[in-house]
């Protein structure tokens, strides 16, 4: 039987929250209604003043967690290294910011933070003592477009292996296992004039078992030129943007995960579109969960609905329904 546990990233309900259709407490109620044990948070999104929230704000958060009896799985943090436009923050400044995030995560009740992709690996060793002191592990997100083979992630992985600490690991985003390009994205860009032949070309890359990064030879972050026939299909800036974004979906073989299983702290259950059959349109969850089970993964998968950004102008985002369906799907494949 599967050891995998279910969680939801509150990111999935960000539009409901931003537009004040759901308060933070409403969201907690929904996790109970949908029978989701684990909570993932973006503290910069729903905790006022993070990473320096007032004591009152921290109390409010902890009261909700207690009242609705949820497990805190992961807090997603960011290092604002572009704080000033005249320079990038130094490593020393970034280290101080990371320490503040660790302490804030601890105060909110978390013992895992997700580091956004491209977080500088040089922050790890200096922050390790703080991570240990506050019992907060740090895990880099392995996100499509900046996955195992990319330069920044590669440097982090080497540093992670070198430091070999239970406080340093990875979070895998299921967007690296896309078998199809999300059709909601295609549909979204159509309204701005996307060339359908370009979209067909990309769909065909996936249909052939590959993905744009691999097909264009850009997996290692190199800006290899597009093939002639593809370049000919780029007719306008929207086409160019669509082409760039298409590199944000990867069709990674599950086996690439194997050597990193000891470092796997958590999984983002990415979903762009949950179909009426309760399947994710792009990502083969059934096979993915079978693979994870075969490797003995016993952590969480947290629903991360990202279709919100492809909703047409003035149409309503339905994060709730996507979360509900995604959780039903997880139950089906996990078995509970």
């Amino acid at each position, binding site marked *: 039987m599967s050891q995998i546990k279910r969680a939801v990233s509150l*990111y999935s309900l*960000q*539009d409901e*929250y*931003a*537009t*004040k259709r759901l308060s933070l407490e409403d969201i907690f109620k929904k996790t109970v209604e949908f029978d989701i044990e684990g909570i993932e948070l*973006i503290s*910069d*999104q*729903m905790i*006022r*003043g*993070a990473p320096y929230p007032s004591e009152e704000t921290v109390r409010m958060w902890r009261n909700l967690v207690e009242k609705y009896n949820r497990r805190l799985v992961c807090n997603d943090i*960011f*290092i*604002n*290294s*572009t*704080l*000033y*436009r*005249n320079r990038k923050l130094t490593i020393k400044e970034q280290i101080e910011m990371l320490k503040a995030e660790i302490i804030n995560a601890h105060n909110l009740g978390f013992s895992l933070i997700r580091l*956004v*992709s*491209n*977080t500088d690996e040089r922050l790890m060793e200096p922050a390790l003592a703080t991570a240990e002191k506050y019992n907060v592990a740090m895990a880099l997100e392995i996100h499509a477009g900046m996955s195992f083979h990319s330069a920044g992630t590669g440097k982090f992985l080497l540093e992670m292996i070198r430091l070999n600490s239970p406080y340093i690991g990875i979070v895998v985003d299921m967007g690296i296992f896309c078998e199809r390009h999300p059709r909601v994205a295609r549909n*979204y860009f159509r309204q701005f004039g996307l060339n359908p032949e370009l979209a067909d070309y990309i769909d065909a890359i996936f249909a052939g078992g590959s993905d744009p990064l691999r097909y264009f030879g850009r997996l290692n972050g190199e800006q290899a030129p597009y093939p002639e026939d593809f370049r000919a299909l780029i007719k306008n800036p929207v086409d160019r943007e669509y082409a760039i974004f298409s590199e944000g979906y990867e069709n990674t073989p599950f086996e690439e995960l194997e050597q990193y299983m000891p470092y796997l702290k958590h999984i983002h259950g990415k979903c762009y579109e949950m179909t009426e059959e309760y399947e994710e349109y792009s990502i083969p969850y059934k096979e993915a969960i079978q693979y994870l089970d075969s490797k003995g993964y016993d952590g969480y998968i947290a629903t991360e609905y990202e279709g919100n*950004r*492809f*909703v047409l*102008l*003035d149409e309503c*985002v339905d994060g709730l329904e996507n979360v509900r369906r995604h959780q039903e799907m997880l139950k089906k494949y996990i078995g509970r």
Partner: protein
Amino acid sequence: MFDNYVFTKDSCKNVEADGKIIGFEIQTLITYYRGIPLSMVYSVEVGVDSIPVPRDMIRISLDRKEWFTLSEAETVSTYKWEYGEPLYIRILAEGGLRKGEHDVRLSISVWPAYYPMPAGGQRTRRVAIE
């Protein structure tokens, strides 16, 4: 991708102070999915009926009390623009918008650390001033 959050509906209004109209104001949510320090706002551009508003006529605020020019905001790293909360944008122009209809355009972007380019959005609304 964040166009839905740009230029809050019905937020465009003339602003009065001491009995005089000193300009007009619009509100917007952040074009991103989390709160960030104000210094990370990369651009704020406003246009009225196809005419761009000069940068130095624009002021921004998180509370309608403390206002910053866009140049000042570049170092305002201690004020956080919270996710889901408005940024108030004022255009200081004596008399404000004339009575009647206008097409007001707002385009705004922020530059998060790990993005290859600013994350922005824009929206034009037909505004009626009475």
